[in-house]
Each structure stands twice: as structure tokens, then as C-alpha cells.
């Protein structure tokens, strides 16, 4: 795969507010890349800079090896699906989809054919003459997709396109988007604050916070090997604790030693203060005394697929462990908790505030 887009040292401020602090991103051809982060992290600004709606204060944008930093949006070979769809209310569905084709001066019979093809791709065959106001939210979303893809862009930019849809429709559209991406064979750059969307659809996830990239990698890497507490906390449920490396492959958390697989060979020397991530589904529940530590179940919720429980351990520090298990354990019962060494993710302590875990309202 060849590199298609490169954002190099992009900075952007609005007055005093520094939105992007030196962002460098490389995007391969035919990749599905997701920019993921809480609101205000700079993901939408990054997308708008790519689309040509904002100019970076410094840095440059390379597209297919060419510098397009100063190329206006109407001469960039990419199309955007806007968050609020931005469909032209005074035109029919067909005229909306045909807009980009007519700009190019394509003859009407070809336009008609293309519009038909575009609407068929998004399962809206025969809707050409409908008014935009007659379409539901999900249908408008599809029209916006069709309007963008009939232009055969090399890259499709999607700014939280599923944000306004209800849960069921959103899940359906996720499959639809992945299908479209495979059918069209083009690059998708997707912006969202929804970690589930990011994990299910992407080839690569770029996690952003406060205008900086926190981590980039495959969904599996982001989930299993987060590099700092922010990423660990933002993606999925987590237990994040402070720990200290006792020696290679042994970390002490709240006075209890846990075997792990990290050591000085990957930068975690004995004596180092670290953050430790243990996913709730990785905490195995054994009879009391048979695990690494004993804890008392303090609450229990039935989530559907599994039970979610909180357990208070009788150790130093006052930490409540979040557990997810298919089996139910009564509140008040004592259990033994065990974690496999490979399921303990050791992370460096945050160097800056934006690498710290935050409280997120979703």
C-alpha cells in the first residue's frame, strides 16, 4: 500500500485556543482511518483542514505526493459527508446527487445514469424525484453518501455521519459503510467520538486528545495495548491503577504483586512508577484464596450478555475493581481475582495532562 495523504506538522489556533498542536498523520491508499476523540480534541478541525475548509497556521498537506496545502476545496480530489448532511433543500434527491457531476459539465444522460448508480449503491433506487424534506434522517444520510461517492473521489471524508441516527440504524449503517468501502475501493477518513464505531469499522484508529495524537494503530492494538491512561480509559471499560515495577515481569499494585510480561527490555525498568490497565473481562473469578487477591463483591448489574460487578479488595489503597463475567456472584460474597500475565498492560505515567484519563460523558 502506498501513502496517499500526509499531514505534516499541522498547527491550528483560533485566537488563544490552540486546537491542533503539531499533528502528523500518514494515510495509506484504500485505508479506513478513524480519528477518534472526545469533543474539542481537534478531530473535526483536522478533517476540515483536509477538506480545504480551514487553513492550517503552519505545516503542509501532501496528497499523492503533491503539496495541496493552498489548493481550494473545489479543486481537491476528495469529497465530504457532512455531519448535518448539508443537502441542498431546494433541490430534489436526484439533483443533489447530480450536483458534483453537473459542475464538471457531464452531459445529462450520463448524469442520469450516474445518479441512478449512486442511489442504488446506498439502497435508494427510484428516489430521484423526492424532496429532501420528505426523506428521513437515515435516508438523508444515504443521499449525502451518494452525492459524495458519484464523483469517484480518491478519498471520502466523513464527519460523524452517524451521529444523528438512532442506535439500530447506526449499527446498520456501520455495516453499510464497510461494504461501500470495499465495493468502491477508496480511502475513508472517518471522524467520531464513538469508540465502538471506531473499533468496528477501521483499519487504523488515531486517538486524539487536546489537539495531539495520543496513539495510532489497529483497533486491536488500541484496545489491547493502549499507550497511556487516556487511551485506555477512552476505549472500552477499564481498571487503571498506579503500580511500581518490582523487577522484570513483576508489577506491584496496591501492595500485591502481579506477574506480567513487561520489563526493562521494553522500557519498564525495575523501580519505575507505572500505570497498569486491566480490562474488566480479563479479571478471572476463582474461589476465595485461589486468586492473586481476594475481594468482596459490592454490587452487581445484569448487562444482557454478561454481569458487571464491582469488587472491593482488602489491600492498600481503596480501589474498586470492575469485573465482567458470564457468571453471577452474590453481593457480599468473597472471591479470588486472577489475571493472566499477558492481560496486564503496563503503561508509562502521563507526562502531560492530556495523556491522563478523563471523565467522559457519552
Amino acid at each position, binding site marked *: 500500500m502506498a501513502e496517499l495523504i500526509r499531514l505534516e506538522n499541522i498547527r491550528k489556533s483560533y485566537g488563544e485556543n490552540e486546537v491542533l498542536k503539531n499533528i502528523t498523520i500518514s494515510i495509506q491508499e484504500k485505508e479506513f482511518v478513524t480519528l477518534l476523540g472526545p469533543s474539542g480534541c481537534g478531530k473535526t478541525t483536522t478533517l476540515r483542514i483536509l*477538506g*480545504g*475548509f480551514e487553513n492550517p497556521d503552519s505545516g503542509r498537506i501532501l496528497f499523492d505526493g503533491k503539496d495541496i496545502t493552498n489548493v*481550494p*476545496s*473545489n*479543486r481537491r480530489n476528495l*469529497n*465530504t459527508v*457532512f455531519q*448535518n448532511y*448539508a*443537502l*441542498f*433543500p*431546494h433541490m430534489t434527491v436526484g439533483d443533489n446527487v447530480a*450536483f*458534483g457531476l453537473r*459542475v*464538471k459539465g457531464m452531459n445529462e444522460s450520463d448524469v442520469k445514469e450516474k445518479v441512478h448508480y449512486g442511489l442504488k449503491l446506498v439502497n435508494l433506487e427510484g428516489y430521484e424525484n423526492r424532496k429532501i424534506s420528505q426523506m428521513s434522517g437515515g435516508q438523508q444520510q444515504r443521499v449525502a453518501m451518494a*452525492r*459524495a461517492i458519484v*464523483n469517484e473521489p480518491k478519498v471520502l471524508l466523513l464527519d460523524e455521519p452517524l451521529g444523528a441516527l438512532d442506535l439500530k440504524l447506526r449499527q446498520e449503517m456501520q455495516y453499510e459503510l464497510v461494504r461501500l468501502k470495499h465495493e468502491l475501493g477508496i480511502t475513508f477518513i472517518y471522524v467520531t467520538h464513538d469508540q465502538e464505531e471506531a473499533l468496528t469499522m477501521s483499519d487504523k484508529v488515531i486517538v486524539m486528545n487536546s489537539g495531539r495524537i495520543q496513539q495510532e494503530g489497529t483497533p486491536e492494538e488500541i484496545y489491547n495495548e493502549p499507550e497511556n491512561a487516556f487511551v485506555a480509559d477512552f476505549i472500552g471499560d477499564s481498571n487503571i491503577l498506579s503500580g511500581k515495577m518490582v523487577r522484570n515481569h513483576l508489577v506491584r499494585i496496591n501492595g500485591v504483586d502481579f506477574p506480567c510480561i513487561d520489563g526493562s527490555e521494553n522500557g519498564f525498568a525495575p523501580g519505575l512508577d507505572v500505570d497498569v490497565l486491566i480490562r474488566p473481562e480479563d479479571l478471572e473469578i476463582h474461589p476465595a484464596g485461589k486468586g492473586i487477591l481476594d475481594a468482596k463483591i459490592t454490587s452487581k448489574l445484569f448487562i444482557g450478555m454478561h454481569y458487571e460487578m464491582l469488587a472491593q479488595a482488602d489491600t492498600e489503597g481503596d480501589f474498586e475493581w470492575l469485573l465482567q463475567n458470564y457468571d453471577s456472584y452474590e453481593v457480599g460474597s468473597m472471591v479470588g481475582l486472577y489475571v493472566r500475565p499477558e492481560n496486564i498492560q503496563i503503561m508509562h505515567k502521563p507526562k502531560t495532562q492530556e495523556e491522563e484519563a478523563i471523565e467522559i460523558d457519552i
Partner: protein
Amino acid sequence: MTFSKKWSAPFIVFVIAGTVIPILSIAYYGFTARGGGITLDNITAMFSANHMQALGLSLLLALVSTLVCLIVAFPMAIVLRDSKFGKQGFTIFVLILPMWMNFLLRTMAWQVLLERAGVINGILQALGLPRQEMMNTPGAVVLGMVYDFLPFMILPIYNAVMKIDSHLIEAAYDLGAGKAYMYRKVILPLCVPGIVSGITMVFIPALTTFVISNMLGGGKVNLIGNIIEQEFTVNSNWYLGSGLSLVMMVFIIISMVLLEKFDKTGEGTFI
């Protein structure tokens, strides 16, 4: 009786006293001969040579001033849209400020400016330039119309332009449109309701005005409004005045219906 029905009573009285009764009495006079009896003479009188000439001139001047208002208002609304947020309100305030002054005073001010010995000629003289005869010309009447009615064009168009979602403009550029194409296909069509109501609010009062033509035309520019006014005041012929008024009313309704055809959303018109 529901709440809204109960409180609508004063408005119904107002509509009956202010609209229905006057129109009925105009219709009565319009179809009545001076000596009594039903006649169509007052209506057909519109087609006499001097009446047609006045109507033609009225149409021409109203069209010209509507066009001038449109040419001034539309670009201005666009400029205002792009300007900084705080400035917009202030600019609009300054533009419609004259509206709060009495209409007669505003028109009289132009008399003082345009007169033979008026302010403009004074300046021209001081610069060593020849005096201009500006009063009592169709140009002076158009100037007065534009000055008096311009805010009625600006406000609806400004409202329409401000309502346009900036994402639509970005979407047009994103799809490859140049600036001219974007304006033609996105901004202009979305302004149509504003333009239509602007035209309605300028063209109709301009078509029927008699005060502006009296004050700036000095009896030399005879519009249909002046003729109707004279029938009521100078000649005390309410029958002919009412007949001509009825024809004008039909004329106005026709032009509003025609305008409505352009406004598919139905937001801008009053029919």
C-alpha cells in the same frame, strides 16, 4: 369557545372595519354612475389615453425603482453575511434608521437637496459646475421611491441570506463548484423567498404612490396614483376614483400571483 377564538374578536372587528367595509364601498362607488344606476364606465375609463399613459409611466417607474432596490440590496445582504457578527446588526440598524422618520419628512428632505437653489446645486455651483434641473423629473421620483422603499427590500433578502446554512456553501465547494456556480445554484435559489417578498413590498407601494410623485415630480410626473387622488380630492368624483382603484387592485393581485410562481416554498408571498 377556545382561548384563541375568544381573543380573535378584536381582529375580526378590525378586518371588517378596516378592509371589508372600505373595499365594499369602493366596489359600490366603482360600479355606480354619477347620476345613479349601475355602470361599467368607471372601470373602462382606465383604458382612456391619458389614464393608460399614467399607468404606463407608473409601471415603468415602479419597475425601475424595484430593480434598483434589488441591485443594491442583494449584494449588500451577501456582503453582510460574510462580515463579522457584531457589524451586521449595526449596519442593518443604520440602513433602516431612516425608516423610523416620517415618510413625508424623508421625501421633503430630497426636495431641499434637489431644488434649483438646493443643496446639491449649491455644491455644484461652488465647484464651478453648471446647475442641474433635478426636481420634477421622473429620475427624481425614482430616487425618492428607492430611498423610501429600499429597507423593505433589504430586510427580507437579508433574512433569507442569513438563514442559509454555511455547510451548504462548503458542500457546494466540496463538490467542485466555483464561486459563481455556487452563488447561482445555492445562494440565489435559497434567497428567492426573500427576493419575492422584497419585490412585493417595493413594487406595489411604488406602483400606487402619489405622495412621492407629488413632492418630487411637482405635477409634471403624473402617475396613476396622482390621477386617482385627484378624482377623490380635486374633482370630488368618488365614482371614477373608485372605479380606477378597483382596476389597480386587480392589477396588484395579478402581479402578486405571478410573483408567487417564482417562490416554490411559499415563504415570501402573502397570497
